[in-house]
């Protein structure tokens, strides 16, 4: 194994955040390399549907201040307000940039960008492209990547970060197409590897969403922030967990229980179906737990929208419902239930995307700036990938351009080789899927929408047992070089086990209900006095250690949060 | 007898007159009373659709309008490409009242009746593969094919896009096989029967087209077919008239007779050479005919 190449800026992950960072770094004059375990357009950003938020004011009075307030409130007051201000202020410019690059957004009658209402938004500010916004963004960003001729190490599985001399200096990868460990050196590295929804059995996430970047940072001793906050999207199809966009509700769809009642009236009488996601998921779960659901699901009813509107504005959702649930939403309500969707927590960064480790940056879902706090508004995640992807890319480029050396020690490569051989040498034992399924089921059961002390403690034990089974050795049947996803899937499982440990540990310690962390049975209210702070998880001697850090408040003092 | 409007298309009018004569002779035997449309033009093939699509729409609307004016329910075609073009134009007009209104306004302005009463466009193949037409076919094919091995060649546009054509599963079609069997022949199966003969680019990109054309012919020969049958005169032209070009590229003289659908059924129904006009084929059909006589 040898150092394959070196770059000024190395971006790991080629979704919206990764590609935006790479483009910006390139435009700032840096030599950029992008590492991705998938071809860029396969990244999960492309599955986003409903839209991207910015206070353009096209559909009604709006302002970055209003967007900021909605986001701060939506975060249940632990979003860092200076970061949120930056996001909301810079968002409009970023959207216009995308449009100038050719993004195929939906339009208003007057030719301006259309904006639809979304959860917990005071004004309709979600810019969209029918219900395939993520797809449109992925396409335009990849086009711009191709235009600049940026090098992409496609189907390279990033496994370990290289730290040397108190700096991050590169990434050790497994080359999926040809086989073998390859090291790519970078004066700076930007993590943009997305989330880890695959920890849960019911998730909107792709198979690829296994938290590899967060795990790499974790293992290096970096602080991960707010790990306990996992967003459950209210409308995932039953039984697959496939996402039906919030945009359906934005277009006016209802949520009804098995009797046809629009139950949101009892939980969020003003915002109704467009309350904040955590509120809606909890309401649904309550209806389901109290017996007013069917097959553990309630229903998304679009019948009253009419065929024309559904086909024009929500054709993707209709096709998903028909293909994966066998239901045509024009005629019948679609069974949906909460599913793991987005991780608010992640690698701690400052407002420029820099982490604690010099030379290492992070942006997008893998990062925690934090703009989303305890709960994210729909449409804000895509915006975060663009705005903070850009900022991290520029910051990384500027740092790289003012520094000259890269030094990847031989020992790092040697250690990795040894570890790899150990993994492949396991001859007898479990196959990874068994541990993966047990993790997914138990996390859903014990660390889902509603959480209880006893169940979370039980989950810690379960995770410990699962890690033990994993450490004992899982059998990787494919010992070959070519397209060995058997190997990479085993590594991904290890990542997910470590991350879930952090998540549950932080969850037990947070003795309150805030945002997506709901403990209605033991700690039903928010406790600002003791817990208006961020959880910090660090890996010390092979286990997570918990501490706390301050929330950055600028303008908004915490208020009661109702919709 | 069902009265249908008959649109023969360009090839059946000119270089493939044998298709027209066979069809006209066969029609009454399978219960079809053909009302030949005269005030029509070429349907445009893929060419006018690509070069001047608005004109393509209007030309086909004109054909549909004249068919409708005959008071029939069905417009009968004998060519894959005509069928696709007319059906596509038909769906556009039926599915968009604004477009239909504009097109009709134009038609009326030049003296053509507006297309108001809807007609359905159907290939002869579909008429005789099932239902009443099929029953009549079985009776008509009294002379039979005496177990001849016939390789059906569907070509492309009678099957795809299946959203528009829709008669049968585009990947597992059965109509030609059923007809071959009803006529007393043995249907040969081979992979390239639903692939492209290359005709649309046989002049502009000859080499590429021949690379396509060789596949069905070679496979039919290897499967032991006595002849091939196709519902499209453009495919027929490729398979028959351009077969000699394959000799130059492969050194092989395939000598595979190619029959129009109407001719194949016509043979089984005892039509005469004056109606079948096999003499117009480039590749001789004699060996196949001799086999039946034997």
């Amino acid at each position: 194994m040898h150092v394959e190449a070196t770059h000024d800026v190395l971006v790991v992950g080629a979704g919206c955040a990764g590609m935006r960072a790479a483009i910006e770094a390139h435009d700032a004059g840096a030599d950029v390399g992008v590492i991705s375990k998938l071809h860029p357009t396969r990244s999960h950003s492309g599955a986003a549907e409903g839209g991207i938020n910015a206070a353009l004011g096209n559909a009604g009075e709006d302002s970055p201040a209003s967007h900021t307030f909605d986001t701060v409130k939506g975060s249940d007051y632990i979003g860092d307000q200076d970061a949120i201000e930056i996001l909301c202020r810079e968002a409009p410019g970023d959207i216009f940039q995308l449009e100038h690059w050719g993004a195929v957004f939906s339009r208003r009658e007057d030719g301006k960008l259309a904006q639809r209402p979304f959860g917990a938004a005071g004004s309709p500010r979600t810019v969209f492209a029918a219900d395939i916004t993520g797809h449109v963004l992925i396409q335009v960003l990849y086009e711009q990547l191709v235009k600049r001729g940026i090098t992409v190490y496609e189907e390279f599985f990033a496994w370990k970060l290289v730290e040397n001399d108190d700096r991050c200096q590169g990434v050790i990868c497994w080359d999926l197409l040809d086989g073998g460990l390859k090291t790519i050196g970078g004066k700076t590295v930007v993590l943009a590897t997305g989330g880890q929804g695959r920890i849960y059995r019911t998730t909107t996430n792709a198979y690829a969403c296994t938290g590899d970047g967060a795990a790499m940072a974790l293992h290096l001793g970096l602080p991960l922030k707010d790990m306990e906050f996992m967003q459950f999207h209210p409308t995932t199809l039953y039984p697959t967990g496939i996402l039906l966009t919030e945009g359906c509700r934005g277009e006016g769809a209802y949520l009804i229980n098995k009797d046809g009642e629009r139950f949101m009236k009892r939980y969020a009488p003003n915002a109704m179906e467009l309350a904040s996601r955590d509120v809606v998921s909890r309401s649904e779960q309550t209806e389901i737990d109290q017996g007013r659901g069917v097959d553990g699901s309630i229903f998304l009813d679009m019948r009253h929208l009419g065929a024309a509107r559904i086909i024009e504005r929500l054709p993707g959702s209709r096709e998903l419902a028909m293909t994966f649930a066998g239901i045509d939403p024009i005629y019948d309500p679609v069974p949906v239930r909460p599913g793991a969707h987005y991780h608010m927590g992640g690698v701690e960064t400052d407002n420029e995307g820099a982490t604690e480790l010099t030379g290492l940056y992070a942006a997008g879902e893998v990062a925690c700036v934090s703009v989303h706090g305890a709960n994210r508004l729909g449409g804000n995640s895509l915006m975060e990938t663009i705005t903070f992807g850009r900022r991290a890319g520029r910051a990384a480029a500027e740092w790289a351009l003012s520094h000259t050396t890269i030094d990847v020690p031989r020992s790092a490569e040697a250690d990795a080789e040894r570890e790899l051989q150990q993994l492949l040498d396991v001859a007898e034992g479990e196959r990874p899927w068994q541990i993966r399924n047990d993790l997914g089921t138990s996390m859903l059961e014990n660390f889902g929408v509603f959480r209880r002390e006893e169940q979370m403690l039980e989950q810690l034990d379960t995770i410990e047992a699962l890690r033990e089974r994993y450490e004992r050795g899982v059998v990787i049947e494919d010992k070959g070089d070519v397209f060995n996803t058997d190997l990479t899937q085993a590594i991904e499982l290890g990542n997910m086990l470590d991350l879930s440990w952090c998540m549950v540990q932080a969850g037990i310690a947070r003795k309150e209900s805030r945002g997506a962390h709901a403990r209605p049975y033991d700690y039903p209210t928010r406790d600002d006095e003791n817990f208006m702070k961020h959880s910090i998880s660090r890996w010390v001697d092979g286990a997570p250690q918990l501490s706390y850090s301050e929330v950055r408040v600028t303008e908004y003092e915490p208020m009661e949060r109702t919709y | 007898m069902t009265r249908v409007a008959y649109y023969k298309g360009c090839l059946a009018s000119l270089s493939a007159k044998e298709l027209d004569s066979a069809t006209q002779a066969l029609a009454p035997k399978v219960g079809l009373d053909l009302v030949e449309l005269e005030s029509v033009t070429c349907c445009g093939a893929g060419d006018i659709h690509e070069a001047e699509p608005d004109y393509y729409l209007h030309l086909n609307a004109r054909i549909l309008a004249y068919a409708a004016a005959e008071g029939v329910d069905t417009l009968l075609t004998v060519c894959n490409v005509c069928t696709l073009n007319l059906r596509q134009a038909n769906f556009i007009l039926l599915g968009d009242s604004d477009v239909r209104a504009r097109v009709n306004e134009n038609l009326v302005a030049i003296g053509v009746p507006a297309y108001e009463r809807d007609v359905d466009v159907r290939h002869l193949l579909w008429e005789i593969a099932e239902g009443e037409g099929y029953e009549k076919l079985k009776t008509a094919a009294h002379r039979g094919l005496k177990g001849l091995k016939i390789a059906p060649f569907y070509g492309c546009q009678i099957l795809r896009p299946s959203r528009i054509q829709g008669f049968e599963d585009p990947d597992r079609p059965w109509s030609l096989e059923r007809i071959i069997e009803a006529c007393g022949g043995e249907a040969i199966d081979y992979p390239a029967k639903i692939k492209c003969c290359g005709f649309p680019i046989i002049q502009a990109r000859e080499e590429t087209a021949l690379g396509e054309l060789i596949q069905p012919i070679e496979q039919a020969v290897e499967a032991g077919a006595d002849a091939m049958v196709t519902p499209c005169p453009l495919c027929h032209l490729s398979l028959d008239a351009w077969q000699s070009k394959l000799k130059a590229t492969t050194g092989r003289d395939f000598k595979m007779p190619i029959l129009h659908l109407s001719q194949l059924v016509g043979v089984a129904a005892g039509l005469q050479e004056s109606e079948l006009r096999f003499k117009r084929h480039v590749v001789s059909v004699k060996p196949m005919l001799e086999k039946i006589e034997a």
Partner: protein
Amino acid sequence: MQVGLKVWRFNARTGERELAEYEVDAPEEATLLDVLDIVKDKHDGTLAYRKSCRMMICGSCGMRMDGAAVLACKTRMYDIAQAGHVPVISAMGNLPIVKDLVVDMDPFWDKFKSVDPFLRPGYDEPPGGRENLIRQERMNVIHKESLCINCGCCVSECNAMESDPRFLGPQALAKAMRFVGDPRDGHKIERLDALNGEHGIWECTRCYFCNERCPKGVDPRDAIAKLGAESMKEGIDGDMGAKHAKWFVVSAKTTGWLRETELVPKTQGLVAAIKQTRFALDLAVKGKVPPPVPPHVAKNVRQARRLHDLVRDQGVNGYAGIVQGEHALAKLAHGHVSGETLEEIYDRPGAFPRPYIAEEAEEAVAS
């Protein structure tokens, strides 16, 4: 349910090929992708295939089932299993196989990149740096092309590409149309010129396999037709394919029926036509070359002439002529034609209860 599969295993390094058979127990809602996952997890971890989103948007899982390219995640197995059919799964066509169901996508991406697949702006900077003002109707020109997820199903089945691997292909051409039709792009003529090259628009054989196989409704063949139409409108018509097409228009206007005999020299030029003389004579002997004189003229052909001029002046030219039909043809795609009212939908037998709000319902009862 019990599901059987046959999978073509292949290793490009060793050249070994074998048809492996699997039988697994899968849930009723399982897709082909789910079944492959079960095979890989529980039967043979060496099976190689791509996957990611499992919801038909990432485009990773293109593969052939019984010789026809599909997205594995979109293909439900219930009916197939019920019928007792054991499908044969193999890698997509027209691309080199790396291993099992994984193809080398480099040739695919190379063609994609060759059409300059990014906006080359040709507009003045909008005031205040805001968005370009464009009506939805105008953007709809490229709506279908913008749906493409680069899955490769169209390329897999392209008959022209199978015969000539250098053909640009349906995906690259559809992507090119996405820019040719984008009002913000400033290089339409340049793009069209390039696309009229030897392996561009006019090498498409019109087999419609791409339209048939595309899992997203892009209809690449129609995108290619749009490019052809726009090329002709802009006077870019030097290719033999364009000349061939033009002659059809001329024929329709003048004689109604195609003037076949003159087609060859009109398409290929007089010199080439002369080279074909031997071939032409073989055809002429059979009467396949109808004499151009006297011309075979359709009845009332004057109408066709007048129609041409009338229509041309109405300005639905170039790709607009094809876009105008998309609204109607989309009805065939989304499969919804009937126009029931909401009441009719709510009243269908066995329909789900109507939505209501409890407070209002209580109030109604009380009053």
